[in-house]
């Protein structure tokens, strides 16, 4: 307990918290991406995956609580540090500031806040399935399908994704958030190592390269889905069918 | 007349310090904390002594005019620190370091002090290494050495080109440790403006808080001045702009005698002056002379040619020619004077004709550019920043500049001035370097005085002081001293007058360089005394300081310092005029070897080398303030009695 308190009270300690929660969140981002990329396969693939997750409430709720805790700590440390950092410079410079630094390193708080707002939207959009915000005027919770080789009726996640990204502004918001995540990770992934003291002059270039590469891969991975849907017309026919079925359900 | 008792312990030279430590009275630990000691200055000497005195248990108050003790100008020393460790197995010993220093000082230093310095030198390196000073090392992990001017052994320890900085940070860390532990109270941005003398003993100081302008009185059982040298009397020098003589000078005006003020060191390797606006001259470390060769063209017609266009056979490597045994590592005074000589012959290079080349071409060929870069990279880049020239491809242009002052307040063997209770350390005293200081020995002296000498010798005085007998600051002496300070501030800020302190400083500096610089003569010195006296009068009536005295006011700080420099300049000229001989850095044109001298014919010295007159001038001049700046100062003499070394002709051939 004493250790945790000491950690939280020190500026370096809070940076360790940022770094460690950052690692966890990075892990989630990777896992989530792997899950999402299954959309490029047969619709059953991602629907089976989603069904598998849903069928393990212990796993999924454990992960959700864990992630909530990570996000909360990451956020709380960021906000308290930012406030302290602002207080350390009561009068700003008139002739310019922060020489030699990159935009992404200076604006990690901004990108983080936008990403947080996006996450909230994303949860309401695809997890809570609040119909008023998906821009289609339809209720995604009614999208159901049957997995081949079984009789279980499961949520049609594939259709939700296709229908969801057909809305241009949803895709735009999604892409903006991914772009900011790209910048956030480009800075954060390398800084993680710095904050934990895991760097020296030979490793720093490699760490930086890793951060650039990983953040780019994540961006391309996530961005490929809405682009494939909106521009490439992926899954259009399937989605039309799902919609048609949904209309039947709604009529009932 | 002042009483000058050098208090040199009896016994053989090599045992004096040990004997003295044993026979000196000690102060028991319980009593030490009852004594309050004021230390002014926090360079190598001030920081190290403050920390050590506090470790011993004394109550120490440290005063600096800087914002932090770490800014003291010791920080700028580049090359290294000597110590008789003989790690190189090249024949070094305490005795050799002692001898080199005495000879380097042209037989004008006090033997006993110098021997003690050489003895203590080995402890300094141990102390600094233990503090974590990152000295240069060999691959085996042991300490590396380099050679320096005036010595034929490699005994100089160094930390790249920043030895002074690293040693200062070491002493500063020791000081910080004791500030953190409560043993030292640190007063920063606090400038000492007067010394308070009570019943003939130094018992307090008057200090101005530079941030608020408030004048404070502080009393103590002993006062230690470690306030550095006075080379800024020349305005242009390698000193920090803030370096000043004020603490020493105010002590002088309260009765402390000032010794050998005319002994100033002109360093041969500085970047030449480029224009009227110049505020500072930058030193290129003497260590460069290890691998750089100094030359000028043989013919003056070639002086304005590009160096690459001057053939090897048309170059005069004059130090190698004139002083073959030491070559480019001839002592500073010798190398500087030689540079002046070749420039006076019209062979000086650069747009002003006041410059010589320091050439690394041969070293780069021999060692490779990388090796040269490793050794001197920071100096080369410093040179590039200032001159916009690349010294890897064309030779550096250098010229001598004022760098150090060997003179200072007179002290006895215990480092106490003739005013009981007033101790003076480091460059501020006169004792160890005679008429010329060898490279890498200023750092040695500052730390020797600070870590090892004063903390031991101060007890000889304090044991005579009753504990609890410290005067209060309400007494008349303090009041009078404060009024003296306030009076000056009122006059300076009264708004009368029209000239800035800087303009006086520039004028004084030019006068000093012209008449009391690298070469001096009777007529010039007499003329200078008159001119400076006029300047002093104008300063009294025509000085103008803008701004308030109850805020930060750099012009007011400067005004006080310049006033002291003007008075000091006059004393320097008087000292130089009195000393009718040449020795070390003091070169009187009337006293030099000529072709007619047998020493020149025998090849011991060159024509133009300095000529001492030991029968008449083997003494320390200790000038006493006569009570008014308008009266002539009083000369006291401490004879220099050499027991061990024979005063010989100083030869580097």
């Amino acid at each position: 307990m004493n250790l945790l308190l000491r950690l939280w009270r020190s500026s370096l300690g809070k940076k360790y918290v940022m770094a460690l929660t950052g690692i966890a969140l990075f892990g989630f981002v990777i896992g989530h991406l792997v899950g999402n990329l299954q959309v490029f396969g047969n619709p059953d693939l991602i629907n089976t995956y989603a069904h598998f997750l849903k069928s393990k409430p212990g796993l999924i709720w454990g992960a959700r609580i864990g992630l909530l805790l990570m996000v909360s700590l990451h956020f709380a440390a960021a906000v308290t540090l930012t406030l302290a950092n602002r207080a350390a410079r009561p009068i700003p410079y008139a002739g310019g500031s922060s020489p030699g630094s990159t935009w992404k390193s200076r604006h990690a708080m901004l990108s983080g806040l936008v990403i947080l707002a996006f996450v909230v939207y994303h949860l309401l959009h695809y997890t809570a399935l609040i119909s008023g915000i998906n821009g289609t005027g339809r209720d995604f919770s009614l999208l159901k399908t049957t997995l081949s080789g079984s009789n279980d009726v499961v949520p049609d996640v594939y259709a939700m994704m296709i229908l969801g990204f057909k809305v241009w502004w949803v895709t735009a918001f999604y892409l903006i958030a991914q772009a900011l995540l790209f910048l956030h990770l480009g800075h954060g992934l390398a800084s993680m190592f710095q904050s934990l003291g895991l760097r020296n002059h030979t490793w720093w270039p490699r760490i930086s390269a890793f951060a650039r590469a990983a953040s780019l891969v994540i961006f391309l991975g996530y961005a490929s889905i809405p682009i494939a849907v909106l521009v490439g017309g992926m899954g259009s026919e399937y989605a039309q069918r799902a919609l048609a079925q949904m209309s039947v359900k709604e009529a009932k | 007349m002042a009483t000058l008792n050098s208090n040199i312990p009896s016994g053989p030279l090599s045992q004096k310090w040990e004997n003295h430590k044993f026979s000196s009275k000690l102060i028991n630990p319980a009593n030490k904390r009852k004594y309050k000691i004021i230390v002014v200055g926090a360079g190598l000497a001030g920081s190290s002594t403050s920390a050590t005195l506090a470790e011993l248990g004394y109550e120490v108050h440290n005063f600096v005019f800087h914002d932090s003790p770490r800014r003291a100008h010791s920080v700028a020393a580049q090359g290294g620190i000597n110590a008789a460790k003989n790690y190189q197995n090249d024949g070094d010993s305490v005795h050799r370091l002692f001898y080199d220093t005495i000879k380097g000082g042209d037989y004008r230093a006090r033997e006993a002090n110098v021997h003690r310095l050489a003895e203590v030198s080995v402890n300094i390196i141990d102390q600094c290494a233990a503090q974590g000073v990152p000295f240069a090392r060999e691959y085996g992990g042991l300490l590396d050495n380099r050679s320096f001017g005036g010595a034929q052994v490699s005994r100089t320890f160094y930390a790249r080109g920043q030895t002074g900085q690293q040693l200062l940070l070491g002493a500063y860390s020791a000081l910080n440790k004791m500030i953190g532990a409560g043993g030292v109270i640190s007063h920063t941005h606090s400038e000492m403006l007067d010394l308070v003398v009570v019943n003939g003993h130094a018992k307090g100081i008057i200090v101005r808080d530079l941030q608020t302008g408030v004048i404070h009185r502080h009393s103590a059982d002993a006062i230690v001045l470690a306030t550095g040298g006075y080379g800024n009397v020349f305005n242009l020098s390698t000193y920090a702009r803030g370096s000043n003589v004020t603490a020493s000078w105010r002590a002088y005006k309260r009765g402390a005698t000032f010794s050998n003020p005319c002994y100033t060191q002109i360093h041969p390797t500085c970047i030449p002056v480029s224009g009227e606006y110049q505020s500072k001259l930058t030193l290129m470390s003497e260590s460069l002379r290890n691998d750089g060769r100094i030359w000028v063209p043989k013919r003056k017609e070639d002086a304005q040619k590009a160096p690459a266009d001057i053939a090897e056979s048309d170059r005069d490597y004059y130090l190698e020619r004139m002083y073959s045994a030491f070559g480019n590592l001839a002592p500073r005074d010798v190398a500087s004077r030689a540079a002046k000589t070749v420039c006076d012959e019209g062979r000086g290079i650069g747009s002003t004709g006041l410059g010589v080349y320091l050439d690394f071409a041969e070293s780069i060929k021999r060692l490779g550019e990388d090796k040269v870069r490793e050794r001197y990279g920071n100096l080369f880049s410093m040179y590039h920043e200032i001159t916009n020239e690349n010294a890897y491809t064309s030779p550096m242009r250098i010229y001598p500049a004022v760098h150090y002052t060997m003179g200072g307040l007179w002290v006895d063997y215990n480092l106490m001035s003739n005013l009981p209770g007033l101790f003076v350390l480091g460059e501020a005293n006169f004792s160890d370097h005679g008429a010329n200081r060898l490279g890498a020995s200023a750092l040695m002296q500052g730390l020797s005085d600070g870590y090892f000498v004063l903390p031991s010798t101060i007890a000889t005085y304090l044991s005579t002081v009753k504990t609890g007998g410290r005067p209060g600051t309400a007494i008349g002496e303090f009041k009078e001293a404060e009024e003296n300070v306030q009076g000056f501030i009122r006059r300076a800020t009264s708004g009368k007058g029209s000239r800035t302190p800087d303009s006086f400083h520039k004028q004084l500096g030019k006068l000093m360089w012209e008449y009391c610089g690298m070469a001096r003569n009777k007529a010039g010195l007499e003329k200078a005394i008159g001119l400076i006296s006029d300047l002093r009068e104008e300063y009294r009536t025509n000085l103008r300081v803008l701004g308030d005295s109850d805020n930060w006011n750099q012009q007011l700080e400067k005004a006080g310092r310049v006033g002291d420099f003007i008075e000091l300049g006059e004393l320097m000229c008087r000292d130089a005029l009195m000393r009718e001989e040449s020795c070390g850095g003091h070169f009187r044109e009337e006293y030099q070897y000529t072709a007619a001298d047998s020493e020149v014919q025998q090849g011991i010295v060159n024509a133009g080398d300095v000529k001492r007159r030991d029968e008449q001038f083997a003494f320390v001049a200790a000038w006493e303030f006569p009570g008014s700046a308008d009266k002539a100062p009083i000369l006291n003499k401490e004879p220099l009695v050499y027991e061990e070394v024979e005063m010989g002709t100083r030869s580097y051939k």
Partner: protein
Amino acid sequence: MKVTLKVWRQKNAKAAGAFKTYTSPELNPNMSFLEMLDVLNEELSNRGEEPIAFDHDCREGICGTCALVINGTPHGPQKGVTTCQTYMRSFKDGDQLVIEPWRAGPFPIIKDLVCDRKSFDRIQQAGGFITVRTGSAPDANSLPVPKEDSDLAMDAAQCIGCGACVAACKNASAMLFVAAKVSHLGLMPQGQPERYRRVKAMVEQMDTEGFGACTVTGSCEAVCPKQISLDFIARLNRDYAVSLLK
């Protein structure tokens, strides 16, 4: 050449400050930046205007006193130098230069362009030393130090304590300064006994003084006149983490 100067003027710590614009006298490109201010100050004085207060001392880049932010960059446009080593040839005729003091809560303004950096001293007093009583040191060669460690320690030890790192950092963080000190001593075998005590005490004092945290923007490294590397901040982070676990 001539330049226009927009200079921060502030009477004392309590007074409010404001910018004032001056036209420089005719300048020589070989002048140092501070010599340019000297010349301007002489001119102001002769006009009866109070000269601009600015901190300076050694004028050779080692004492760490000079501290000007020129057009948003501490120590001016050139890399690896202090303000006093900045020369007018770095600017063009007719340039407008905004000159400000270091700005950080823990560096309060004393006057005009002069700020108070005692907070750095207090960090050092908290633990920036190796406890070794004068006279108690063993022979210097009794403890070999690998050359690589000693060289790296020297890289860190070069810090001149100017505070440009704080001035440049958008968070006014003193991490590079503290890291340099902690690394210098922590890399030497002499510094091992107090290694973790030291880092803990210094970091705590740094936080108490009100400096911000490091967000790895790299501004400090970019302006450091001694080009001290961010690697040392990683080392500080590492040592502090260990100290917390001890």
